[in-house]
């Protein structure tokens, strides 16, 4: 029922973007797709007549678009670094960390290499996938491994966490370091294994209303919603840790 009407509203051709403050545009990291879509519906219900439009993508791409003048109201990034390029260009005020994400070891459901802790990843017979250091999950993985004093030689350094997860799902690698949220979203196809050093490598998600927002009031309201308890519940349900 409600899904249908929401979709119909989405499908209606929305006239030019920087219109009256009945429309809110949120740029958010792709890993927030599910949770933010749900929060968007909540926001629309709470503010009748307002339509929330999302632009999900890689945080770096979104930052690039914002610095090139994209008409966005809110930016939620998956790493402080990407948010920094936006704040450095004085396009946003001080960002707030609204949620955190913790690493887990992901192994295929049948766990063929019998991995059960971080040390097992150093075995040269175990094929491991990590994220590239340039992306947040890769930076976190490096931090965690350093903290454990382990040296892992991965077969690949993936461009994002989803790609890393896909490799585990399809059994191409025996283990990978990914976020808890990702393990959760993969359903039963991968198993997550917690490890203590994960606490040393937590990734922060910052959010900010943009200074050139076409709808500054709505932007602030949306940020508030995300930071509220209601927002936290949705995010934690998806596997995030409260900030």
């Amino acid at each position, binding site marked *: 029922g409600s899904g249908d009407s929401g979709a119909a509203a989405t499908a209606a051709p929305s006239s030019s973007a920087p219109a009256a403050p009945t429309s809110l545009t949120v740029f958010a990291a*792709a890993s927030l797709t599910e949770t933010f879509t749900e929060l968007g519906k909540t926001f629309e219900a709470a503010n009748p007549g307002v339509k929330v439009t999302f632009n999900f*993508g890689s945080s770096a791409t979104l930052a*690039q678009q914002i610095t090139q003048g*994209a008409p966005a109201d809110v930016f939620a990034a998956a790493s402080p670094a990407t948010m920094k390029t936006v704040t450095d260009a004085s396009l946003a005020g001080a960002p707030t960390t609204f949620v955190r994400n913790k690493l887990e070891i992901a192994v295929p459901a049948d766990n063929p290499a019998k991995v059960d802790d971080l040390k097992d990843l150093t075995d040269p017979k175990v094929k491991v996938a990590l994220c590239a250091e340039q992306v947040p999950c890769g930076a976190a993985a490096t931090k965690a491994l350093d903290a454990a004093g382990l040296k892992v030689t991965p077969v690949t350094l993936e461009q994002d966490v*989803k790609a890393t997860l896909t490799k585990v799902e399809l059994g191409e690698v025996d283990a990978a370091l990914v976020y808890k949220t990702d393990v959760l979203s993969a359903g039963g196809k991968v198993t997550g294994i917690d490890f203590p050093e994960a606490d040393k490598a937590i990734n922060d998600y910052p959010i900010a209303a943009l200074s050139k927002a076409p709808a500054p009031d709505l932007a602030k309201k949306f940020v508030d919603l995300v930071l509220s308890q209601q927002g936290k519940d949705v995010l934690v349900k998806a596997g995030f840790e409260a900030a």
Partner: protein
Amino acid sequence: MLFALALIGMAFLVLPLAGLLIRAPWSTLPQRLGQPQVLEALRLSLVTATVATAACLVLGVPLAWLLARVPFPGRRLVRALVTIPLVLPPVVGGVALLLVLGRRGLVGQWLDTTFGFSLPFTTAGVVVAEAFVAMPFLVISVEGALRAADLRYEEAAATLGASRWTVFRRVTMPLIAPGIVAGAVLCWARALGEFGATITFAGNFPGRTQTMPLAVYLALETEPDAAIVLSLLLLVVSVAILAALRDRWVTTA
């Protein structure tokens, strides 16, 4: 020999499709395809790819003609420059488009202040991104066809009083029709599958700029199975269109 190689080539291209088919979640398929956003994204993909192809035909065929028929200094360089969007990783292509046509870009700034019109994050922006990435395919195919064509028909037309433009329109174009069709097919298919430049330049707004490949990308983030379903839908529709269209074009050409 020829047959064996051809069959290996065919298997190489078609087998991965089999992989997708096996993996596809057939039970939930009808429900997933019934979602209005899916049809919306599909419609948008088809419309933008078609408009982009039309734009590429209008601009690209004359460009190919220029490169194949008119000697001018620097032609070699221009010919190589035309392949740039091919080599450029699409995401960088999107950045380059933003730098030029974005609201703060070289040309975009002027567009914005003069007409109050800005390309990024609009459906027109999707067409621009797709055309940018796909046009080289058209230009290079058509140029190849032009080089292979028999110049003497054009000479014959000139002796009958046909201007360059008439020769082009009434003799050259029909003669190289198969080459143009091939180029247009490449161009259309490439535009249909375009992802990196589109998401960078035009963003990912459902109903406005979210084409199928972007929807697939988001689906990959949330439900990989849904991504496979969407990809299959895109494939089936495009293969059906190409199979229906190309044979008709090829035979009337």
